[in-house]
Protein backbone atom coordinates (compact mmCIF):
# COMPACT_ATOMS: atom_id res chain seq x y z
CA UNK A 1 0.00 0.00 0.00
CA UNK A 2 2.83 2.36 0.92
CA UNK A 3 4.56 1.74 -2.41
CA UNK A 4 1.29 2.45 -4.20
CA UNK A 5 0.98 5.80 -2.42
CA UNK A 6 4.56 6.72 -3.25
CA UNK A 7 3.95 5.86 -6.91
CA UNK A 8 0.75 7.88 -6.97
CA UNK A 9 2.48 10.82 -5.28
CA UNK A 10 5.22 10.69 -7.89
CA UNK A 11 2.61 10.68 -10.63
CA UNK A 12 0.90 13.70 -9.10
CA UNK A 13 4.22 15.51 -8.76
CA UNK A 14 5.03 14.78 -12.39
CA UNK A 15 1.62 16.06 -13.42
CA UNK A 16 2.09 19.23 -11.38
CA UNK A 17 5.45 19.92 -12.99
CA UNK A 18 3.95 19.21 -16.37
CA UNK A 19 1.05 21.52 -15.57
CA UNK A 20 3.49 24.36 -15.07
CA UNK A 21 4.11 24.15 -18.80
CA UNK A 22 0.74 25.78 -19.40
CA UNK A 23 2.53 29.11 -19.53
CA UNK A 24 4.27 27.76 -22.58
CA UNK A 25 2.47 26.83 -25.76
CA UNK A 26 2.96 23.12 -25.83
CA UNK A 27 1.14 20.88 -23.41
CA UNK A 28 1.85 17.22 -23.08
CA UNK A 29 0.40 15.37 -20.09
CA UNK A 30 2.19 12.11 -20.66
CA UNK A 31 4.73 12.89 -23.29
CA UNK A 32 2.58 11.14 -25.89
CA UNK A 33 0.84 14.23 -27.15
CA UNK A 34 3.63 16.09 -28.82
CA UNK A 35 3.34 19.47 -30.46
CA UNK A 36 5.83 20.84 -32.92
CA UNK A 37 6.43 24.56 -33.35
CA UNK A 38 3.74 26.47 -31.47
CA UNK A 39 1.06 28.30 -33.41
CA UNK A 40 2.00 31.65 -31.83
CA UNK A 41 5.55 31.35 -33.17
CA UNK A 42 4.35 30.33 -36.62
CA UNK A 43 1.86 33.18 -36.82
CA UNK A 44 4.45 35.70 -35.61
CA UNK A 45 6.83 34.58 -38.34
CA UNK A 46 4.12 34.43 -40.98
CA UNK A 47 2.70 37.84 -40.10
CA UNK A 48 6.15 39.44 -40.23
CA UNK A 49 6.66 37.90 -43.66
CA UNK A 50 3.19 39.06 -44.70
CA UNK A 51 3.90 42.65 -43.59
CA UNK A 52 7.30 42.69 -45.22
CA UNK A 53 5.88 41.58 -48.54
CA UNK A 54 2.51 43.32 -48.30
CA UNK A 55 3.18 45.82 -51.07
CA UNK A 56 4.31 43.15 -53.50
CA UNK A 57 1.80 40.62 -52.24
CA UNK A 58 0.37 38.32 -54.86
CA UNK A 59 -2.65 39.61 -56.75
CA UNK A 60 -4.10 37.24 -59.28
CA UNK A 61 -5.95 38.40 -62.37
CA UNK A 62 -8.70 36.56 -64.15
CA UNK A 63 -10.23 37.48 -67.51
CA UNK A 64 -13.88 37.95 -68.48
CA UNK A 65 -14.50 34.25 -68.85
CA UNK A 66 -14.19 33.61 -65.13
CA UNK A 67 -11.65 31.31 -63.59
CA UNK A 68 -11.21 28.01 -61.83
CA UNK A 69 -9.00 26.73 -59.07
CA UNK A 70 -8.01 23.30 -57.85
CA UNK A 71 -8.00 22.14 -54.22
CA UNK A 72 -6.38 19.05 -52.72
CA UNK A 73 -5.62 17.89 -49.19
CA UNK A 74 -3.46 15.61 -47.10
CA UNK A 75 -0.98 14.33 -49.69
CA UNK A 76 1.50 13.15 -47.01
CA UNK A 77 4.30 13.02 -49.57
CA UNK A 78 6.96 10.47 -48.68
CA UNK A 79 9.15 8.66 -51.20
CA UNK A 80 6.39 8.37 -53.79
CA UNK A 81 5.14 11.82 -54.82
CA UNK A 82 2.89 10.51 -57.60
CA UNK A 83 -0.35 12.06 -56.44
CA UNK A 84 1.23 15.43 -55.72
CA UNK A 85 2.74 15.39 -59.19
CA UNK A 86 -0.67 14.51 -60.63
CA UNK A 87 -2.37 17.39 -58.81
CA UNK A 88 0.10 19.91 -60.21
CA UNK A 89 -0.14 18.43 -63.71
CA UNK A 90 -3.95 18.45 -63.58
CA UNK A 91 -4.00 22.10 -62.54
CA UNK A 92 -1.55 23.08 -65.28
CA UNK A 93 -3.30 21.04 -67.98
CA UNK A 94 -6.71 22.49 -67.16
CA UNK A 95 -5.43 26.07 -66.87
CA UNK A 96 -6.62 26.56 -63.31
CA UNK A 97 -5.77 30.04 -62.11
CA UNK A 98 -4.28 28.73 -58.88
CA UNK A 99 -3.93 25.56 -56.81
CA UNK A 100 -4.51 25.19 -53.08
CA UNK A 101 -3.24 22.48 -50.79
CA UNK A 102 -5.05 22.09 -47.47
CA UNK A 103 -2.13 20.87 -45.39
CA UNK A 104 -0.28 17.71 -44.37
CA UNK A 105 1.54 18.12 -47.64
CA UNK A 106 4.51 15.93 -46.71
CA UNK A 107 5.49 13.80 -43.79
CA UNK A 108 8.19 15.37 -41.71
CA UNK A 109 11.48 14.32 -43.21
CA UNK A 110 13.98 16.49 -45.06
CA UNK A 111 14.17 13.94 -47.87
CA UNK A 112 10.44 14.22 -48.52
CA UNK A 113 10.61 18.01 -48.63
CA UNK A 114 13.50 17.86 -51.11
CA UNK A 115 11.28 15.66 -53.30
CA UNK A 116 8.38 18.07 -52.88
CA UNK A 117 10.50 21.12 -53.67
CA UNK A 118 11.80 19.45 -56.79
CA UNK A 119 8.22 18.74 -57.94
CA UNK A 120 7.22 22.34 -57.35
CA UNK A 121 10.25 23.64 -59.26
CA UNK A 122 9.42 21.43 -62.23
CA UNK A 123 5.79 22.54 -62.14
CA UNK A 124 6.86 26.19 -61.99
CA UNK A 125 9.11 25.73 -65.02
CA UNK A 126 6.16 24.28 -66.92
CA UNK A 127 3.90 27.08 -65.71
CA UNK A 128 6.39 29.74 -66.84
CA UNK A 129 6.84 28.04 -70.22
CA UNK A 130 3.10 28.07 -70.76
CA UNK A 131 2.23 31.52 -69.46
CA UNK A 132 5.34 33.68 -70.03
CA UNK A 133 7.53 34.71 -72.92
CA UNK A 134 11.22 35.29 -72.41
CA UNK A 135 12.16 38.70 -73.74
CA UNK A 136 15.83 38.78 -72.82
CA UNK A 137 18.36 36.88 -70.72
CA UNK A 138 16.68 37.59 -67.41
CA UNK A 139 13.20 38.90 -68.04
CA UNK A 140 9.85 37.39 -68.85
CA UNK A 141 6.55 38.90 -69.79
CA UNK A 142 3.16 37.32 -69.27
CA UNK A 143 1.70 36.07 -72.54
CA UNK A 144 -1.76 37.27 -71.52
CA UNK A 145 -0.45 40.79 -70.92
CA UNK A 146 -1.50 42.71 -74.02
CA UNK A 147 -0.25 46.14 -72.87
CA UNK A 148 2.05 47.97 -75.25
CA UNK A 149 4.56 48.33 -72.47
CA UNK A 150 4.02 45.14 -70.47
CA UNK A 151 5.50 44.63 -67.02
CA UNK A 152 8.50 42.33 -66.94
CA UNK A 153 9.52 39.87 -64.26
CA UNK A 154 12.58 37.80 -63.59
CA UNK A 155 12.10 34.06 -63.20
CA UNK A 156 12.39 34.34 -59.42
CA UNK A 157 9.79 37.10 -59.31
CA UNK A 158 7.21 35.01 -61.10
CA UNK A 159 4.92 33.50 -58.50
CA UNK A 160 3.90 29.92 -59.13
CA UNK A 161 0.28 30.06 -57.93
CA UNK A 162 0.43 27.13 -55.54
CA UNK A 163 -0.87 28.18 -52.14
CA UNK A 164 -0.79 25.80 -49.19
CA UNK A 165 -2.00 25.97 -45.62
CA UNK A 166 -0.02 24.20 -42.95
CA UNK A 167 -1.26 20.94 -41.41
CA UNK A 168 -0.57 19.15 -38.15
CA UNK A 169 1.76 16.63 -39.78
CA UNK A 170 3.68 19.51 -41.34
CA UNK A 171 4.62 20.83 -37.91
CA UNK A 172 5.45 17.71 -35.93
CA UNK A 173 9.04 17.51 -34.78
CA UNK A 174 10.90 20.18 -36.77
CA UNK A 175 8.51 20.15 -39.69
CA UNK A 176 7.87 23.88 -39.57
CA UNK A 177 11.50 24.58 -40.45
CA UNK A 178 11.14 22.43 -43.57
CA UNK A 179 7.70 23.70 -44.51
CA UNK A 180 8.45 27.37 -43.99
CA UNK A 181 11.73 27.15 -45.93
CA UNK A 182 9.60 26.49 -49.03
CA UNK A 183 6.34 28.30 -48.36
CA UNK A 184 7.42 31.02 -45.85
CA UNK A 185 4.00 31.92 -44.48
CA UNK A 186 1.08 29.98 -43.02
CA UNK A 187 -1.26 32.94 -42.48
CA UNK A 188 -1.96 35.19 -45.47
CA UNK A 189 -4.54 36.52 -47.88
CA UNK A 190 -4.67 37.05 -51.63
CA UNK A 191 -6.95 39.05 -53.89
CA UNK A 192 -8.20 37.86 -57.26
CA UNK A 193 -9.11 40.70 -59.61
CA UNK A 194 -11.71 39.54 -62.10
CA UNK A 195 -12.48 41.48 -65.27
CA UNK A 196 -16.20 41.51 -65.96
CA UNK A 197 -17.82 41.42 -69.42
CA UNK A 198 -19.17 44.97 -68.89
CA UNK A 199 -15.66 46.36 -68.46
CA UNK A 200 -15.87 46.68 -64.70
CA UNK A 201 -14.03 44.41 -62.32
CA UNK A 202 -14.88 42.41 -59.23
CA UNK A 203 -12.55 41.23 -56.49
CA UNK A 204 -12.57 37.82 -54.86
CA UNK A 205 -10.71 37.15 -51.67
CA UNK A 206 -8.68 34.14 -50.51
CA UNK A 207 -7.90 33.68 -46.81
CA UNK A 208 -5.39 31.08 -45.64
CA UNK A 209 -5.47 30.27 -41.92
CA UNK A 210 -2.97 28.45 -39.77
CA UNK A 211 -5.11 25.88 -37.97
CA UNK A 212 -2.50 23.13 -37.82
CA UNK A 213 -2.50 23.11 -34.03
CA UNK A 214 -6.26 22.62 -33.77
CA UNK A 215 -6.54 26.23 -32.69
CA UNK A 216 -5.71 29.52 -34.39
CA UNK A 217 -4.01 30.65 -31.19
CA UNK A 218 -4.35 33.98 -29.45
CA UNK A 219 -2.11 35.97 -31.82
CA UNK A 220 -3.90 34.87 -34.98
CA UNK A 221 -7.32 35.55 -33.44
CA UNK A 222 -6.21 39.01 -32.32
CA UNK A 223 -4.83 39.77 -35.77
CA UNK A 224 -8.08 38.62 -37.36
CA UNK A 225 -10.01 40.82 -34.94
CA UNK A 226 -7.77 43.75 -35.91
CA UNK A 227 -8.90 43.19 -39.50
CA UNK A 228 -5.59 41.92 -40.83
CA UNK A 229 -7.34 39.29 -42.96
CA UNK A 230 -10.17 41.58 -44.08
CA UNK A 231 -8.22 42.47 -47.21
CA UNK A 232 -7.69 45.64 -49.22
CA UNK A 233 -11.17 45.75 -50.69
CA UNK A 234 -13.21 44.80 -47.60
CA UNK A 235 -14.87 48.21 -47.43
CA UNK A 236 -15.87 48.02 -51.10
CA UNK A 237 -17.15 44.51 -50.64
CA UNK A 238 -15.68 41.33 -51.99
CA UNK A 239 -17.70 39.37 -54.48
CA UNK A 240 -16.61 36.01 -53.12
CA UNK A 241 -14.44 35.03 -50.17
CA UNK A 242 -12.90 31.58 -49.97
CA UNK A 243 -11.29 30.36 -46.75
CA UNK A 244 -8.76 27.54 -46.52
CA UNK A 245 -7.99 25.72 -43.27
CA UNK A 246 -6.36 22.41 -42.47
CA UNK A 247 -8.44 21.58 -39.39
CA UNK A 248 -12.05 20.84 -40.23
CA UNK A 249 -15.10 22.42 -38.64
CA UNK A 250 -17.58 19.59 -39.12
CA UNK A 251 -16.95 15.92 -38.41
CA UNK A 252 -18.00 13.58 -41.21
CA UNK A 253 -18.39 10.51 -38.97
CA UNK A 254 -18.36 9.66 -35.28
CA UNK A 255 -15.47 7.18 -35.48
CA UNK A 256 -12.84 9.67 -36.62
CA UNK A 257 -9.86 9.87 -34.30
CA UNK A 258 -8.90 13.42 -35.20
CA UNK A 259 -9.39 16.59 -33.21
CA UNK A 260 -11.52 19.33 -34.64
CA UNK A 261 -11.73 22.85 -33.21
CA UNK A 262 -12.82 23.21 -29.58
CA UNK A 263 -16.33 24.48 -28.75
CA UNK A 264 -15.71 28.23 -28.43
CA UNK A 265 -13.39 28.34 -31.41
CA UNK A 266 -15.89 26.49 -33.59
CA UNK A 267 -18.57 29.04 -32.76
CA UNK A 268 -16.14 31.93 -33.16
CA UNK A 269 -15.17 30.72 -36.64
CA UNK A 270 -18.74 30.03 -37.76
CA UNK A 271 -19.57 33.59 -36.76
CA UNK A 272 -16.45 35.04 -38.39
CA UNK A 273 -17.07 33.25 -41.70
CA UNK A 274 -20.55 34.70 -41.77
CA UNK A 275 -19.19 38.18 -41.01
CA UNK A 276 -16.68 37.79 -43.86
CA UNK A 277 -19.55 36.72 -46.10
CA UNK A 278 -17.62 33.62 -47.06
CA UNK A 279 -18.80 31.67 -50.07
CA UNK A 280 -16.99 28.45 -49.25
CA UNK A 281 -14.65 27.12 -46.55
CA UNK A 282 -12.29 24.31 -47.56
CA UNK A 283 -10.89 21.93 -44.94
CA UNK A 284 -8.81 18.75 -44.83
CA UNK A 285 -7.38 16.85 -41.87
CA UNK A 286 -9.92 14.04 -41.31
CA UNK A 287 -9.30 12.25 -44.63
CA UNK A 288 -13.00 12.04 -45.24
CA UNK A 289 -15.42 13.82 -47.53
CA UNK A 290 -18.07 16.10 -46.06
CA UNK A 291 -20.25 18.80 -47.57
CA UNK A 292 -22.70 21.02 -45.75
CA UNK A 293 -24.16 24.47 -45.41
CA UNK A 294 -24.30 26.42 -42.17
CA UNK A 295 -25.90 29.85 -42.05
CA UNK A 296 -25.31 30.58 -45.71
CA UNK A 297 -21.69 29.44 -45.79
CA UNK A 298 -20.74 26.31 -47.74
CA UNK A 299 -18.22 23.91 -46.18
CA UNK A 300 -16.27 21.26 -48.07
CA UNK A 301 -14.02 18.81 -46.24
CA UNK A 302 -11.80 16.88 -48.63
CA UNK A 303 -10.68 13.27 -48.79
CA UNK A 304 -6.94 12.62 -48.49
CA UNK A 305 -5.13 12.45 -51.80
CA UNK A 306 -2.31 10.48 -50.18
CA UNK A 307 -1.32 7.26 -51.94
CA UNK A 308 -0.94 5.53 -48.59
CA UNK A 309 -4.44 6.41 -47.38
CA UNK A 310 -6.22 6.03 -50.70
CA UNK A 311 -4.15 3.83 -53.01
CA UNK A 312 -6.97 3.30 -55.51
CA UNK A 313 -7.87 5.97 -58.09
CA UNK A 314 -10.64 8.24 -56.90
CA UNK A 315 -12.12 11.71 -56.73
CA UNK A 316 -9.75 13.30 -54.23
CA UNK A 317 -9.50 16.79 -55.73
CA UNK A 318 -12.09 19.51 -56.14
CA UNK A 319 -12.20 22.11 -58.92
CA UNK A 320 -14.11 25.31 -58.23
CA UNK A 321 -15.43 27.18 -61.23
CA UNK A 322 -16.13 30.84 -60.66
CA UNK A 323 -18.13 31.81 -63.70
CA UNK A 324 -18.24 35.20 -65.40
CA UNK A 325 -21.73 35.83 -64.00
CA UNK A 326 -20.38 35.28 -60.49
CA UNK A 327 -21.92 31.86 -59.92
CA UNK A 328 -19.71 29.32 -58.19
CA UNK A 329 -19.85 25.62 -58.98
CA UNK A 330 -17.58 22.83 -57.78
CA UNK A 331 -16.80 19.50 -59.37
CA UNK A 332 -14.88 16.47 -58.10
CA UNK A 333 -11.68 15.73 -60.00
CA UNK A 334 -10.46 12.17 -60.36
CA UNK A 335 -6.88 11.18 -59.55
CA UNK A 336 -5.66 8.16 -61.50
CA UNK A 337 -2.21 7.63 -60.11
CA UNK A 338 -1.77 4.34 -58.26
CA UNK A 339 1.34 3.76 -56.21
CA UNK A 340 3.95 1.18 -57.17
CA UNK A 341 3.25 -2.08 -55.43
Amino acid at each position, binding site marked *: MKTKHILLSL*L*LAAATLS*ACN*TLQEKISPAGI*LIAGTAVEDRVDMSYNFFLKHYEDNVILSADEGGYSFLVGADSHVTTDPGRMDEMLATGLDENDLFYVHLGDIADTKAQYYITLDSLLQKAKARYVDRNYRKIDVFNYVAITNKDEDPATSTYDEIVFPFFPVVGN*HDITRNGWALWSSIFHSSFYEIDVIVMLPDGNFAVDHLIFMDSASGTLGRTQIQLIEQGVMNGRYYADGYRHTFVFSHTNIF*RPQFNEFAS*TFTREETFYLLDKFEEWNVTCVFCGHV*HMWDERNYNGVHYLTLEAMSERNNPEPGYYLVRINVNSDGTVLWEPVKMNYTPNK
Partner: protein
Amino acid sequence: MNRFSHAFLLPGLLLLAVFGANAQTYSGPRQFDGVHRNEVSGNLALGYNVVSGWFVGQAGTYTRHFTDRWSLSAGEQVQILKWLFSADVMGTYRLPFRHSSLYFDARLVNNVYAQWDQYEIIANASAFWETSHFDLRLGMSFIHYYKYKVKEEYQWFTDAGYTEPPTITFGVGLNMLPRTSSWNLGLFLRNYDQFYYENWNINWGLRFHNIIPHTGMKLFGEFNIRPAGSLSQLATRYETSLKLGLKYAW
Protein backbone atom coordinates in the same frame (compact mmCIF):
# COMPACT_ATOMS: atom_id res chain seq x y z
CA MET B 1 -3.36 12.83 -39.23
CA ASN B 2 -2.34 9.56 -37.72
CA ARG B 3 -5.31 7.34 -36.92
CA PHE B 4 -3.42 4.37 -35.63
CA SER B 5 -0.94 5.85 -33.23
CA HIS B 6 -3.76 6.67 -30.82
CA ALA B 7 -5.60 3.39 -31.15
CA PHE B 8 -4.00 2.15 -27.96
CA LEU B 9 -4.99 5.13 -25.84
CA LEU B 10 -8.54 4.13 -24.88
CA PRO B 11 -7.73 0.46 -24.19
CA GLY B 12 -4.79 1.73 -22.15
CA LEU B 13 -7.03 3.93 -20.08
CA LEU B 14 -9.44 1.03 -19.58
CA LEU B 15 -6.61 -1.19 -18.41
CA LEU B 16 -5.51 1.52 -16.02
CA ALA B 17 -8.99 1.59 -14.52
CA VAL B 18 -9.22 -2.21 -14.29
CA PHE B 19 -5.82 -2.32 -12.63
CA GLY B 20 -7.17 -0.06 -9.94
CA ALA B 21 -10.39 -1.94 -9.43
CA ASN B 22 -9.36 -3.64 -6.21
CA ALA B 23 -11.59 -1.18 -4.44
CA GLN B 24 -11.34 -0.11 -0.86
CA THR B 25 -14.43 1.52 0.59
CA TYR B 26 -17.23 3.20 -1.28
CA SER B 27 -18.03 6.78 -0.45
CA GLY B 28 -19.43 8.05 -3.77
CA PRO B 29 -18.73 10.98 -6.09
CA ARG B 30 -21.23 13.10 -4.24
CA GLN B 31 -20.16 11.75 -0.86
CA PHE B 32 -23.63 10.23 -0.52
CA ASP B 33 -23.78 8.29 2.74
CA GLY B 34 -27.29 6.88 2.40
CA VAL B 35 -28.68 9.25 5.01
CA HIS B 36 -28.83 12.76 3.65
CA ARG B 37 -31.27 13.67 0.90
CA ASN B 38 -30.06 17.01 -0.43
CA GLU B 39 -26.80 18.37 -1.74
CA VAL B 40 -25.94 21.77 -3.02
CA SER B 41 -22.61 22.83 -4.43
CA GLY B 42 -21.23 26.00 -5.94
CA ASN B 43 -17.91 27.00 -7.37
CA LEU B 44 -16.13 30.03 -8.70
CA ALA B 45 -13.91 29.79 -11.76
CA LEU B 46 -11.13 31.90 -13.19
CA GLY B 47 -9.54 31.08 -16.50
CA TYR B 48 -7.91 32.15 -19.73
CA ASN B 49 -9.17 31.06 -23.10
CA VAL B 50 -7.37 31.61 -26.40
CA VAL B 51 -10.54 32.87 -28.11
CA SER B 52 -12.22 34.94 -25.41
CA GLY B 53 -9.24 35.84 -23.19
CA TRP B 54 -9.70 36.04 -19.41
CA PHE B 55 -13.00 34.93 -17.95
CA VAL B 56 -14.57 34.52 -14.52
CA GLY B 57 -17.57 32.42 -13.70
CA GLN B 58 -19.67 30.59 -11.22
CA ALA B 59 -21.60 27.34 -11.31
CA GLY B 60 -24.07 25.71 -8.95
CA THR B 61 -25.74 22.32 -8.68
CA TYR B 62 -28.56 20.96 -6.53
CA THR B 63 -29.01 17.20 -6.13
CA ARG B 64 -31.96 15.40 -4.62
CA HIS B 65 -31.52 11.75 -3.61
CA PHE B 66 -34.93 10.09 -3.76
CA THR B 67 -33.55 6.74 -2.62
CA ASP B 68 -30.05 5.44 -2.13
CA ARG B 69 -30.21 4.43 -5.82
CA TRP B 70 -32.05 7.22 -7.63
CA SER B 71 -31.17 10.88 -7.75
CA LEU B 72 -31.89 13.94 -9.85
CA SER B 73 -29.77 17.06 -10.10
CA ALA B 74 -29.96 20.42 -11.83
CA GLY B 75 -27.22 22.93 -12.40
CA GLU B 76 -26.34 26.27 -13.92
CA GLN B 77 -23.24 28.16 -14.99
CA VAL B 78 -22.47 31.73 -15.92
CA GLN B 79 -19.07 32.70 -17.33
CA ILE B 80 -18.57 36.42 -17.67
CA LEU B 81 -16.30 37.77 -20.44
CA LYS B 82 -16.69 34.47 -22.26
CA TRP B 83 -20.43 35.11 -22.10
CA LEU B 84 -21.34 31.49 -21.68
CA PHE B 85 -24.60 30.57 -19.97
CA SER B 86 -25.37 26.94 -19.16
CA ALA B 87 -28.06 24.85 -17.53
CA ASP B 88 -28.42 21.12 -17.10
CA VAL B 89 -30.54 18.36 -15.56
CA MET B 90 -29.29 14.87 -14.83
CA GLY B 91 -30.92 11.70 -13.59
CA THR B 92 -28.75 9.00 -12.04
CA TYR B 93 -29.17 5.39 -11.04
CA ARG B 94 -26.51 3.89 -8.78
CA LEU B 95 -25.69 0.20 -8.93
CA PRO B 96 -23.41 -1.01 -6.11
CA PHE B 97 -20.83 -3.45 -7.44
CA ARG B 98 -18.63 -5.15 -4.84
CA HIS B 99 -16.73 -2.31 -3.21
CA SER B 100 -17.36 0.07 -6.06
CA SER B 101 -20.37 1.73 -7.61
CA LEU B 102 -21.57 1.98 -11.15
CA TYR B 103 -23.62 5.05 -11.98
CA PHE B 104 -25.82 5.37 -15.03
CA ASP B 105 -26.30 9.03 -15.89
CA ALA B 106 -28.73 10.59 -18.36
CA ARG B 107 -28.11 14.27 -18.84
CA LEU B 108 -29.37 17.22 -20.82
CA VAL B 109 -27.15 20.30 -21.11
CA ASN B 110 -28.01 23.66 -22.66
CA ASN B 111 -25.33 26.19 -23.53
CA VAL B 112 -25.71 29.68 -24.89
CA TYR B 113 -22.50 31.11 -26.35
CA ALA B 114 -23.89 34.61 -26.43
CA GLN B 115 -20.81 36.23 -27.97
CA TRP B 116 -21.44 34.32 -31.18
CA ASP B 117 -25.22 33.84 -30.89
CA GLN B 118 -24.90 30.07 -30.81
CA TYR B 119 -27.16 27.76 -28.86
CA GLU B 120 -26.01 24.23 -28.10
CA ILE B 121 -28.02 21.38 -26.68
CA ILE B 122 -26.33 18.17 -25.55
CA ALA B 123 -27.89 14.85 -24.57
CA ASN B 124 -25.44 12.59 -22.81
CA ALA B 125 -25.80 9.05 -21.58
CA SER B 126 -22.86 7.56 -19.73
CA ALA B 127 -21.77 5.03 -17.16
CA PHE B 128 -19.47 6.11 -14.37
CA TRP B 129 -17.54 3.47 -12.47
CA GLU B 130 -16.08 4.59 -9.20
CA THR B 131 -13.65 2.64 -7.07
CA SER B 132 -11.52 3.66 -4.17
CA HIS B 133 -8.66 5.20 -6.13
CA PHE B 134 -9.87 5.23 -9.71
CA ASP B 135 -12.89 6.26 -11.66
CA LEU B 136 -13.85 5.82 -15.27
CA ARG B 137 -16.61 7.29 -17.39
CA LEU B 138 -17.70 5.96 -20.77
CA GLY B 139 -20.68 7.10 -22.74
CA MET B 140 -22.04 8.92 -25.72
CA SER B 141 -23.06 12.50 -26.40
CA PHE B 142 -25.45 13.82 -28.99
CA ILE B 143 -24.79 17.46 -29.74
CA HIS B 144 -26.88 19.87 -31.75
CA TYR B 145 -26.24 23.58 -32.22
CA TYR B 146 -27.60 26.44 -34.22
CA LYS B 147 -27.31 30.17 -34.54
CA TYR B 148 -30.28 31.65 -32.74
CA LYS B 149 -29.94 35.09 -34.20
CA VAL B 150 -29.32 36.00 -37.80
CA LYS B 151 -27.52 39.31 -37.76
CA GLU B 152 -29.04 40.84 -40.86
CA GLU B 153 -32.64 40.06 -40.12
CA TYR B 154 -32.59 39.53 -36.35
CA GLN B 155 -34.75 36.53 -36.91
CA TRP B 156 -34.68 34.11 -33.98
CA PHE B 157 -34.35 30.34 -34.23
CA THR B 158 -33.25 29.89 -37.80
CA ASP B 159 -33.18 26.43 -39.28
CA ALA B 160 -29.43 26.61 -39.76
CA GLY B 161 -28.64 23.92 -37.25
CA TYR B 162 -26.08 21.17 -37.19
CA THR B 163 -26.20 17.84 -35.39
CA GLU B 164 -22.79 16.35 -34.78
CA PRO B 165 -22.23 12.65 -35.29
CA PRO B 166 -22.43 10.81 -31.94
CA THR B 167 -19.49 11.73 -29.75
CA ILE B 168 -17.82 9.24 -27.44
CA THR B 169 -17.53 10.41 -23.84
CA PHE B 170 -14.60 9.16 -21.84
CA GLY B 171 -12.74 10.14 -18.72
CA VAL B 172 -10.52 8.65 -16.06
CA GLY B 173 -9.60 9.86 -12.59
CA LEU B 174 -6.90 8.79 -10.21
CA ASN B 175 -6.89 9.59 -6.48
CA MET B 176 -3.89 9.61 -4.24
CA LEU B 177 -5.82 8.42 -1.17
CA PRO B 178 -8.91 6.22 -0.76
CA ARG B 179 -12.17 8.04 -1.20
CA THR B 180 -13.01 7.58 2.47
CA SER B 181 -10.19 9.89 3.38
CA SER B 182 -11.20 13.37 4.61
CA TRP B 183 -8.98 14.99 1.98
CA ASN B 184 -7.70 13.87 -1.35
CA LEU B 185 -5.68 14.88 -4.35
CA GLY B 186 -6.10 13.41 -7.78
CA LEU B 187 -5.57 13.56 -11.50
CA PHE B 188 -8.16 13.49 -14.23
CA LEU B 189 -8.11 13.14 -17.99
CA ARG B 190 -11.31 13.38 -20.01
CA ASN B 191 -12.97 14.84 -23.10
CA TYR B 192 -15.69 16.72 -21.21
CA ASP B 193 -16.07 19.16 -18.37
CA GLN B 194 -18.91 20.38 -16.20
CA PHE B 195 -20.96 21.80 -19.08
CA TYR B 196 -19.30 20.83 -22.34
CA TYR B 197 -18.51 17.68 -24.26
CA GLU B 198 -15.71 17.70 -26.82
CA ASN B 199 -14.86 15.06 -29.39
CA TRP B 200 -11.11 14.38 -29.30
CA ASN B 201 -9.94 17.42 -27.39
CA ILE B 202 -8.90 16.07 -24.02
CA ASN B 203 -8.69 18.22 -20.91
CA TRP B 204 -6.73 17.12 -17.88
CA GLY B 205 -5.48 18.40 -14.57
CA LEU B 206 -5.44 18.19 -10.81
CA ARG B 207 -8.35 18.01 -8.39
CA PHE B 208 -8.61 18.08 -4.62
CA HIS B 209 -11.19 18.06 -1.85
CA ASN B 210 -11.13 18.56 1.86
CA ILE B 211 -14.02 17.86 4.22
CA ILE B 212 -14.49 20.69 6.70
CA PRO B 213 -15.11 18.97 10.05
CA HIS B 214 -18.48 19.35 11.83
CA THR B 215 -20.01 21.51 9.11
CA GLY B 216 -21.35 19.02 6.56
CA MET B 217 -19.34 20.97 4.01
CA LYS B 218 -16.59 20.00 1.62
CA LEU B 219 -14.10 22.30 -0.05
CA PHE B 220 -13.14 21.23 -3.54
CA GLY B 221 -11.12 22.55 -6.44
CA GLU B 222 -9.74 21.79 -9.85
CA PHE B 223 -6.86 23.01 -11.97
CA ASN B 224 -7.88 22.27 -15.54
CA ILE B 225 -5.72 22.35 -18.65
CA ARG B 226 -7.61 22.20 -21.88
CA PRO B 227 -5.36 21.92 -24.91
CA ALA B 228 -6.54 22.08 -28.49
CA GLY B 229 -5.78 19.29 -30.89
CA SER B 230 -4.97 16.66 -28.29
CA LEU B 231 -5.52 13.67 -30.52
CA SER B 232 -3.75 15.04 -33.55
CA GLN B 233 -0.34 15.02 -31.90
CA LEU B 234 -0.60 18.76 -31.36
CA ALA B 235 -1.74 19.56 -27.82
CA THR B 236 -1.37 23.31 -28.02
CA ARG B 237 -2.52 25.65 -25.26
CA TYR B 238 -6.17 26.57 -25.49
CA GLU B 239 -7.64 27.15 -22.05
CA THR B 240 -6.42 27.02 -18.47
CA SER B 241 -8.79 27.43 -15.54
CA LEU B 242 -9.00 27.15 -11.77
CA LYS B 243 -12.16 26.22 -9.90
CA LEU B 244 -12.79 26.49 -6.19
CA GLY B 245 -16.06 25.49 -4.56
CA LEU B 246 -18.05 24.32 -1.57
CA LYS B 247 -20.48 21.44 -1.28
CA TYR B 248 -23.05 21.16 1.49
CA ALA B 249 -25.21 18.15 2.28
CA TRP B 250 -28.17 17.84 4.63
